[in-house]
């Protein structure tokens, strides 16, 4: 079977941007087309990953706007909203469009504009994904993280410091990512003394609010070399959902959506967790890096924290996690994040990651919506 190749990729600067969502999407989309030397009117399908442009800025219909701005008129367009996992779900849609034969050239652009809102308002937009019985109590995603973190530390006797080390590591990685929102190291003491946000988690356990966009260009592998000397292939991809109501889960420290989506992706790629050389995980909160690294099968349940303590997930460790700086330091423009994870794997696998380059031929990205409510796991490989 002809595999699906990624022949171009881009991401904008992440951070506090003056541009609005339409402009951010066009910036990343244009750059990905240029990366592969493809014109807008070569596109058969165009997907936009975005959670909430209507809620954030009163702009809907963004795929149509982007098609017009990129000269892709006539292309089939579709918006993909899967909350924080919109980017991963967009990769799934783009992969499907090429794998099915419906499209021979598909552009995926993910983006979000958030920083014009206060933290409180942005938190509320994201919390609107919760069930009414959660929303009425003021439950938020940071709140769910606090609930899971307390349970995890208690259940597995993990020291509070180990969570802080995730933040220190990802900030360190972000220093070498020119697109990252924060390019500044932090020390453990700063993390552990920062203000409490959702006990036991503190400010530095959380990702920031971010504007930004990222894009990927897909075509059949059989024609990839016509466009690009170097490309990567989507060797496995899987999506899964967990409960909508978070408290209905049997184990608050297991992300079943991560477990199930990765099983599908591993099987499709004929790979296992031991084959993965580097991974981009959805560290919206530090605790999520532990949970995903365990539920993806990298480490035993309850031992993800130990791996961080031992430096296994450092850039020079056996399994570098979040070489991009992760959501934690790169930033988290909701719809863009899953696409930007794949962008990082793309540049790493092509050997174009500069100062943050690591060795490897198999990369995995895990993009989480809500609190594991919906997850996409993608495996990218050198051809």
């Amino acid at each position, binding site marked *: 079977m002809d595999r699906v190749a990624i022949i171009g990729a881009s991401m904008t600067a992440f951070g506090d941007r003056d541009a609005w969502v339409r402009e951010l999407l066009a910036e990343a989309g244009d750059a990905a087309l240029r990366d592969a030397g493809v014109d807008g009117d070569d596109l058969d399908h165009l997907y936009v990953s975005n959670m909430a442009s209507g809620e954030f800025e009163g702009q809907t219909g963004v795929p149509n706007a982007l098609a017009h701005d990129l000269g892709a008129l006539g292309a089939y367009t579709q918006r993909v909203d899967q909350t924080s996992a919109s980017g991963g779900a967009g990769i799934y849609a783009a992969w499907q469009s090429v794998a099915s034969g419906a499209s021979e050239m598909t552009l995926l652009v993910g983006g979000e504009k958030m920083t014009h809102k206060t933290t409180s308002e942005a938190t509320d937009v994201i919390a*609107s994904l919760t069930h009414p019985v959660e929303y*009425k*109590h003021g439950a*938020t995603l940071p*709140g769910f993280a606090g609930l899971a973190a307390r349970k995890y530390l208690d259940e597995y006797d993990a020291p509070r410091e180990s969570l802080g080390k995730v933040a220190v590591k990802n900030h360190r990685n972000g220093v070498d990512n020119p697109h990252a929102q924060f390019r500044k190291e932090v020390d453990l003491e700063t993390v552990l003394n920062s203000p409490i946000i959702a006990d*036991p988690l503190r400010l530095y356990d959380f990702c920031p609010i971010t504007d930004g966009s990222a894009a990927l260009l897909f075509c059949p592998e059989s024609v990839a070399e016509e466009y690009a000397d170097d490309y990567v292939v989507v060797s496995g991809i899987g999506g899964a959902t967990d409960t909508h109501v978070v*408290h209905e889960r049997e184990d608050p420290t297991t992300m079943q959506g991560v477990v199930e989506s990765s099983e599908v992706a591993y099987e499709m790629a004929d790979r296992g967790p031991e084959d993965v050389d580097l991974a981009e995980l959805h560290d919206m909160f530090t605790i999520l890096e532990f949970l995903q690294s365990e539920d993806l099968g990298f480490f035993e349940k309850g031992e993800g924290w130990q791996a961080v303590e031992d430096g296994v997930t450092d850039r020079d460790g056996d399994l570098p996690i979040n070489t991009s700086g992760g959501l934690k330091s790169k930033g988290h423009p909701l719809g863009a994040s899953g696409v930007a994870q794949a962008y990082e794997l793309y540049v790493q696998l092509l050997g174009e990651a500069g100062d943050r380059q690591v060795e490897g031929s198999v990369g995995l990205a895990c993009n989480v919506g809500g609190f594991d409510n919906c997850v996409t796991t993608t495996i990218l490989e050198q051809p």
Partner: protein
Amino acid sequence: MSFDAHRCPNGHVTYPGHTRCPECGEEQTETVDLAERTGTVVTWTTSQATPPGVREPNHLAIVEFSVEGESVRALGQLTTANGVEIGSEVEPVYEEELRDPEAGIREPDSQEWDGYRFEPV
């Protein structure tokens, strides 16, 4: 007023209710009031950065109840975090308005805003 969990013919209990039982797919046909029962704290947090219309700080807990051998859990505000630990016993206390319905992004008429907080026993 009541704090209704929902039960299917196979005895599975959930809070809130669902169109079909998430466990077995059958229709949920009964309700079980949790208001007079005592529950156990599974985990808890204190949120210091809350959305518009939500008290700050906001103490939250996931609480587990046992209904004839079946476990059912609910998330809710705690009346206080003082002395609360994983495993603490709590009981539901009715509250007319858990957050200001007018302040947040959700349409006020689209859902209920009263419910039960958890008070340490």
